[in-house]
């Protein structure tokens, strides 16, 4: 199935935002937008679902807290309850204040690191990954909107010209993805 993709270039984030809204209003599906920096509100304009990364982080934090409590309870209270400097190692609760720094740090450690790893996995980032950049200029000063052509190619091109695109390229897809 040979299809066509249009690459529309913009050189200003405000123009890009307006263009995204117009293209959305004309009911075209935007495949991807490449930006050199975060454009505030672009995700909302594109209608992207909000991230759930914060929720995963909260859950990872709970895991970290559980690990810390289980670990300290087993080591200090159950396995070998020594008298170390008169600290009351009879029950977890009695000696808890001494464990709080560890419980806190492990909660933060798990929440932070596992969330970052989740982010890498979900956004497919790793060393030696092949860059997916369609045009070098989008890392510097150009914004690129990628739209797949389904209907009238000319009409879509005109619409994009109207939105203030500085350059429009029509690419033939060779079933590469």
């Amino acid at each position, binding site marked *: 199935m040979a299809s066509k993709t249009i690459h529309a270039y913009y050189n200003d984030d405000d123009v890009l935002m307006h263009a995204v809204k117009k293209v959305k209003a004309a009911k075209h599906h935007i495949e991807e937008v490449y930006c050199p920096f975060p454009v505030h509100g672009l995700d909302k304009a594109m209608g992207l679902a909000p991230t759930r990364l914060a929720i995963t982080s*909260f859950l990872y934090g709970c895991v970290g807290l559980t690990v810390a409590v289980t670990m300290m309870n087993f080591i200090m209270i159950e396995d070998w309850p020594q008298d170390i400097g008169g600290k009351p190692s009879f029950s977890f609760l009695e000696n808890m*204040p001494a464990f709080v720094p560890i419980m806190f740090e492990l909660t933060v450690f798990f929440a932070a690191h596992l969330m970052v790893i989740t982010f890498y996995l979900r956004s497919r980032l790793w060393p030696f990954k092949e860059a997916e950049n369609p045009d070098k200029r989008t890392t510097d000063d150009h914004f690129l909107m990628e739209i797949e052509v389904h209907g009238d190619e000319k009409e879509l091109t005109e619409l994009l010209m109207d939105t203030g695109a500085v350059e429009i390229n029509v690419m033939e897809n060779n079933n590469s993805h």
Partner: protein
Amino acid sequence: MYTFSNKLKIGSFILMAVGFLGIAIGFISMPSTVEEAKAIVASHDDGHGAHATETHAATGGHGADAHGGEHDASHDEHVLHQLRNKPWAALYVGAFFFFMISLGVLAFYAIQRAAQAGWSPLLFRVMEGITAYLVPGGIIVFVILVMSVLHMNHLFVWMDPEVVAHDELIQGKSGYLNPTFFLIRAAIFLGGWIFYRQYSRKLSLQQDEANDNANFKLNFRWSAGFLVFYLVSESMMSWDWIMSLDPHWFSTLFGWYVFASMFVSGITVIAMVTIYLKSKGLLPDVNDSHIHDLAKFMFGISIFWTYLWFSQFMLIWYSNIPEEVTYYITRIEDFKLPFFGMIAMNFLFPVLLLINSDYKRINWFVVLGGIVILLGHYLDIFNMVMPATVGDQWSIGIPEIGAVLFFAGLFIFFVFRALATVPLQPKRNPFIEESRHFHY
């Protein structure tokens, strides 16, 4: 322009009347002889009395000689003092709590000005309204302190010359802890805070009528200066007005701890008053992002308070030095529920409720969190004052609730009266446009 609604005004008067009645009942039922005190303790429950004797003997007396044949007599005397302190301590906790809220708001206000925050100018009039309570509230606290110095009560044990005569530790501190210097310091602190509040309010109102930003710039400088003064004076105030209730005990981060308590209560009250006024349609430009920001501060400072509470507790628990640790032993033995209950109210509840970004934009969530935070910080002050003044004779009964209601009524009256005097939105603040379009 806000008009003080009659309903709220009458409500505040009812609160004051009911509260006054409660305070009066507390003072009337105060025992004047040892026999009456015994009757009160016995009527509560017998087991409690026995427990009290035990812990009293264990902790070794607060300046009173708790040994030998005089044990029973001195114990009864001690209980009498505690019971006579009860209505005073209840009054003091209530007065200080509401005063501390307006002082916390003043600190927040000065920070917003000094930091040139872009989101908050819309709320400046609300904050200025809340700090209006600083003048009457500060005067009441000062009057209670003067009454203590005049020996009308026994809240501050170091003010009693007989106690000092037998107590070398307090004698050693008398260069700082003496009634004259104590009142001079209190007057300087209150004078400084009230001066900044009144002057900054004046400049803030003048800015609305001016043609240039001179008033705004002057206010910025005064706010920065005030923060320096506040940091020093607030810390010393906490030693004077709270920590000296236990003159044998000391803690270095106590000033910060009291600050965190007043700061988070103050921010909570700003959020609640803002939500109230907005629900009346009086703050049309305040959007849920402003509420979200305030809720973030409530969340963050609640954690900050917990951090300080825990740091103070854990350091003393860990090293377990007898002269420091008695402070927590009396609290954990006699105040178990309020002492640990406040951790749940001031930390667990707000953290779990306000961690969600969406919840921070929902008014009733913020109000619910705010009510629990305020109750929790009342308990915090209660836990700081009561163990030193009434010991194991504490309860949350008519005098305590009466004092809270009375000062709540007074607070509402002065705050909303001040809010009704000027338009609720500053006109010419250089950041007002940014604040109106604030969006997070």
